[in-house]
């Protein structure tokens, strides 16, 4: 099927017109601060336009977003989503039926498919549209305060179209055992919709919780998910965040996850990319309080013409802050991965400890993985390091397995699995671990 395209300039005009029509129609009911935020963001998007890979633009050097800028998507504003049965949603879920789960279809919250039990400690999980309509003070206080729409065009676009998404509030001291699942599903169809899901998670002081943000494709069609998540981790809080992306192969998936940590806060993430044609994950952390720490894990299993770009920026603004990153990729076909890990250590941020590793296993000669560590260190008293590896399976390991009777193909499979097991095993919640593990193994089976 030959696909229609538009120029990036024309595309920009289309988004501006869509914004205007939304302002005229649906948005008049929304609180004035939301409308002001959207207006500021669309103005910024108008100036920025889509990023290009031109020289000097390090941030987008390895990921050409022209296909996103030029695709003639048919639906640019949130609209009534397709009706789904619970059975269609089931394969994207894990754990028990009573666990908190918000389901969105093409960016719009579907109450009928969601499960919102009363949670201990006053934990609240609700659609962002509802939270905004209720004039929730916390939402006003935090929404749009962390993700930078001044310089990132996609964040500006998302912010301009803030309409729905998820709001999670873990009050001070609350400890939630069961993971909260924010499930975003996409239908595609002939319409090739664009959606701008928005997530806000506010974890109060000393709270503990796990939030899973997953993105799944209901069809093999093309669509554009432009996601922005803002996460606030209070003093002494622990937030485990898992993002699982299993969209269709032609899908565009561009996300920014912006995390702000306070004193002694702990943030751990697991970023899994299985699907998507053009995927870009920005994960930005502000280590904004003494003693806070983060552990960032990632797995990408890609093949065909898939392109996955992980850009992780950790800003160690305060002393005694620690970060550790472990990303691993397995690439087949003509797949391409980029890992761009930046670590910033501010002038007075003594005793910072930062370590990042990106390892890739290439299953074909045409696959390519690029690892770009970058350090900006303005303090002497720090420990920073990085490691990278890229290559084929270890011949000595293969031979060892074969020498015990295991055939070559099976030996390869065992080693390929083992390569990602190290990362996946960092997820300890069992139903979630099993869910991710099964997804990963199914994908590997097909590679």
């Amino acid at each position: 099927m030959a696909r229609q395209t538009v120029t990036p300039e024309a595309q920009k005009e289309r988004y501006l017109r869509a914004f205007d029509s939304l302002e005229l129609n649906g948005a008049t009911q929304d609180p004035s601060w939301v409308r002001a935020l959207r207006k500021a963001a669309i103005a910024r998007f108008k100036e920025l336009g889509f990023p290009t890979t031109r020289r000097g633009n390090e941030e987008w050097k390895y990921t050409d977003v022209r296909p996103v800028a030029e695709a003639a998507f048919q639906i640019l504003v949130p609209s009534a989503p397709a009706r789904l049965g619970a059975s269609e949603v089931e394969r994207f879920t894990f754990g028990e039926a009573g666990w908190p789960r918000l389901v969105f279809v093409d960016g719009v919250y579907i109450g009928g498919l969601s499960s919102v039990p009363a949670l201990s400690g006053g934990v609240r999980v609700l659609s962002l549209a509802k939270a905004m309509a209720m004039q929730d003070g916390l939402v006003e206080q935090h929404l749009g305060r962390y993700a930078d729409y001044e310089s990132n065009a996609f964040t500006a676009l998302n912010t301009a179209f803030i309409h729905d998404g998820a709001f999670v509030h873990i009050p001070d001291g609350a400890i939630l055992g069961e993971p909260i699942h924010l499930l975003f599903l996409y239908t595609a169809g002939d319409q090739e919709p664009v959606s701008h899901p928005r997530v806000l998670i506010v974890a109060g002081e000393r709270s503990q919780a796990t939030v899973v943000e997953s993105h799944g494709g209901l069809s093999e069609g093309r669509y554009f998910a432009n996601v922005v998540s803002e996460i606030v981790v209070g003093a002494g809080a622990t937030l485990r965040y898992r993002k699982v992306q299993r969209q269709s192969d032609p899908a565009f998936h561009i996300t920014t996850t912006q995390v702000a940590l306070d004193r002694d806060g702990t943030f751990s993430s697991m970023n899994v990319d299985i699907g998507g044609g053009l995927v870009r994950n920005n994960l930005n952390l502000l280590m904004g309080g003494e003693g806070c720490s983060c552990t960032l894990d990632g797995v990408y299993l890609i093949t065909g013409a898939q392109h996955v770009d992980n850009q992780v920026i950790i800003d160690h603004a305060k002393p005694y802050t620690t970060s550790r990153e472990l990303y691993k990729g397995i690439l087949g076909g003509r797949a391409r991965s980029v890992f761009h890990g930046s670590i910033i250590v501010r002038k007075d941020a003594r005793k910072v400890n930062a370590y990042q590793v990106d390892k890739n296993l290439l299953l074909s000669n045409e696959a390519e993985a690029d690892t770009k560590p970058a350090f900006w260190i303005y303090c002497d008293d720090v420990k920073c390091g990085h490691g990278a590896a890229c290559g084929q399976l270890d011949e000595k390991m293969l031979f060892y397995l074969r020498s015990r009777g295991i055939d070559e193909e099976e030996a390869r499979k065992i080693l390929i699995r083992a390569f990602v097991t190290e990362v996946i095993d960092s997820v300890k919640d069992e139903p979630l671990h099993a869910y991710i593990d099964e997804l990963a193994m199914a994908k590997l089976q097909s590679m």
Partner: protein
Amino acid sequence: MGETKSSPLLEVRDLRASVGGVEILKGVNLQVWPGELHAIMGPNGSGKSTLANVLAGNPAFVVTAGEALFQGENFLIMRPEERARRGFFLSFQHPIEIPGVRLDNFLRSGMNAVRKSRGLGSVDVLQFNRMLREKAQAVEIDATLLARAVNEGFSGGEKKRMEILQMAVFEPMLAVLDEPDSGLDVDALRIVAEGINRLRRSESATIVITHYQRILNYVVPDKVRVFVGGRIVQSGGKELALEVEAHGYDRFEEAAKAPPASV
């Protein structure tokens, strides 16, 4: 197949092999009969491990001439996994660590592959693990190691004992043990040696590659081969090991330069 009694288990004739274009094995001749235990001794770099790896089918080495028959069949054309399934076992000099692969799962996969090739069904997980734990106890391996990644973080002694455990699992027809004794303390040496003796059967055979006479006090060889410069230059009984230990390899170096003789 009725010929096994009257023919050697392994017959190697004028075997030559190279790695990276350099010839390492320079005409190895060797016969191993059922029930035998051989010791191969030789200086560092003489090619002992190369011989072991070539027999196991390590693709890193290229066989350039000669042949090896295992139970009367051309061994060199078989894939490594096929050799293992037919009852060949190599205990590695340096067992490799494989992160992310559990030892028990790995051995069960191997065991099931071997069984499948013999037309037998898979072993059940519980049954296999019980058998593995029992065999581990015999070589004094802590059961917790079995659920860990293959050799990862194991001590040198643990790695060697783990190779013996693997041998016990596979009950091979021919086991080549490449320096099963190096780096072991007295107790570990005794455990390894007992493990080797326990597995001896009248129809199978064992080759122990070693630098030290010490292990041969426990594991008594029928034949001792001196390996110098890529081939076997002298054969004898167990007293040959004492001679090597006392005088070193100097007197064999000359012989290594002479053209290969049939042993």
